[in-house]
């Protein structure tokens, strides 16, 4: 007998488990970390992985965690790091004096030349992206 839809509990999909998603994200990150900046491969890899995640996030193929209905006043604490970062990024960008007063991107570039660091940043980016898709 068919169960009413609102009484059935959807079983977690096989691929939607950390044992599957973590190795997949690590593999994607290791590949992405091998592509240098400004290369066609890096652009295609970013477009491909990001495109798939955006498609998953905008479709209803992945179960989402419930979102809060409202945020209280303590949420304003998040403005503190955002404003500090914004002030420094804005000032370094507007003054545009290069390495003497570098933007965050200019500071990160030399670090990202290392394959391992690059792969680690790829993993952080993809993992956070996956987290957003699940929200």
């Amino acid at each position: 007998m068919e169960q009413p839809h609102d009484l059935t509990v959807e079983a977690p999909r096989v691929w939607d488990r950390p044992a599957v998603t973590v190795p997949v994200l690590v593999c994607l990150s290791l590949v992405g970390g091998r592509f240098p900046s400004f290369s066609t491969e890096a652009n295609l890899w970013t477009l491909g992985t990001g495109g798939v995640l955006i498609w998953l996030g905008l479709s209803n193929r992945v179960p989402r965690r419930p979102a809060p209905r409202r945020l209280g006043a303590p949420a304003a604490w998040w403005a503190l790091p955002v404003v500090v970062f914004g002030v420094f990024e804005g000032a370094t960008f507007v003054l545009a004096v290069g390495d003497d007063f570098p933007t965050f991107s200019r500071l990160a570039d030399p670090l990202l030349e290392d394959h391992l660091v690059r792969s680690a940043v790829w993993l952080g980016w993809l993992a956070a992206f996956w987290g957003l898709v699940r929200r």
Partner: protein
Amino acid sequence: MMRTLAIGGFLVSLVLFAAVEWAARREGSRIPTLGEVCAYVMRYEVGPVPVGRIGLFGFWWWLGWHFLAR
């Protein structure tokens, strides 16, 4: 001198991000985690268009592209 100021400023902001997230994850905290703030932003819709989701996904994709492909 100015370079040290920039590095210090960015480090302070990163430490503040970590500190607020840590405070949010404490037992009984009323501060939402960064994930909850993002989830709340992603609830925003204009008619049938999930503007919040599109905006946040677009921003995050651009960030990765900016650092990892450009």
